[in-house]
């Protein structure tokens, strides 16, 4: 299953905060697709995945897919 999270127009750290708050609402193994156009998200969403030990499935322009691992 996948949940979409529209963070377009939000500046960091808001997209990362929304991602962190959405994580517990999905099952382990499910994905969250984050739409974020703040340039800082390109660094901060992958950094959040690394720091919180979640999987960054893909990072395309303004679109990030994150899988819940724990």
């Amino acid at each position, binding site marked *: 299953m996948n949940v979409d999270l529209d963070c377009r127009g939000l500046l*960091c*750290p808001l997209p990362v*905060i929304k991602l962190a708050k959405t994580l517990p609402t999905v099952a382990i193994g499910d994905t969250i697709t984050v739409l974020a156009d703040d*340039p*800082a998200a*390109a*660094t901060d969403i992958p950094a959040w995945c690394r*720091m919180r030990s979640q999987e960054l499935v893909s990072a395309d322009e303004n679109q990030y897919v994150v899988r819940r691992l724990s």
Partner: protein
Amino acid sequence: MLLSAVDSGWADPVRLHHEGRTARLLLDNARAVLADAIGVRPDDLYLTTSGTTAIRAGLTAVRAARSRVGQTVVHSAVEHSAVLHSGGESAVEVGVDMQGRVDLEAFSTAVRQPGVALAAVQSANHEVGTRQPISALAEACGDVPLLVDAAASVGHDAVPAGWSVLTASAHKWGGPAGVGLLAVRKGTRITPAWPMDEREDGLSPGFPNVPNALAAAAALQARLSEAAELDKQHRAWIDEVRRRVAADISDVEVVGDPEDRLPHILTFSCLYVDGEAIVTALDAEGFAVSSGSACTSSTLRPSHVLAAMGVLTHGNVRISLGRSTTYADIDRFCAVLPGIVQRIRAEVGM
């Protein structure tokens, strides 16, 4: 020092009257002291109006002199913006690792391509403190001139060897704003890329600020006389802040090389924290810190240094210690920071 220099060094040093010759003498003295401090001959040292103008003048003058070879500037992704702006569209950017250290293999490959006018790498990073392996990079350069931006190091750390052009900025060692150093190693060809006058061999046009040059020289002398002691103190204090920030705050990323670094700089990022909020809260506690977070920059883009390293850019704090920093400051900073981070996180429900 600055005030007496304003009284005696106000005249134009290229004029032949008494006051002009006095100013010339003072300028020569300042240049001799500055050259000695960074280990070059006075003839090879030009004084510019800032570290940024030193980089622009040095980079463009070497590139113009090597136009028959090519126009390409090879530089690391974490250089000062003056290098990024001067490199132009044909520049080749070499990536860095998570500590901010340039990829030596990629650099060696890039610098050996045809058409490279020069390479530019900083001695150490101005935001995260990580030193660059200048002697290995210089070796990789071969005949290609290497410009080393030493603004973050001079006065705080040893000046590396192997460069063709070296730049620095007086305000970074406690001197006045408006004085930059541009050292050009003998044998390096330069062609200033703008209309030349008789000043500084054409590398820094216009009436020089003699009193500020003298103040810069005096400040560097003073700084170097206590550099060994400050180095020891600052290294220990930064180690302590690094340890306490990581231990007392959850979800924090302390960045930069913990060992091979400048003595006085530390950078860390706190997850879910707004950069502007943490800078403002620390200011209210009497701490003047910098931040590489996007919300604290005029461009609303995060620090290109943090982005190139791939580390968290929001909630970013950079501290740099000065000669008047005390252990009490360090201890109080470490004591108030966890509460500030907790409060800012609570405001957004984290």
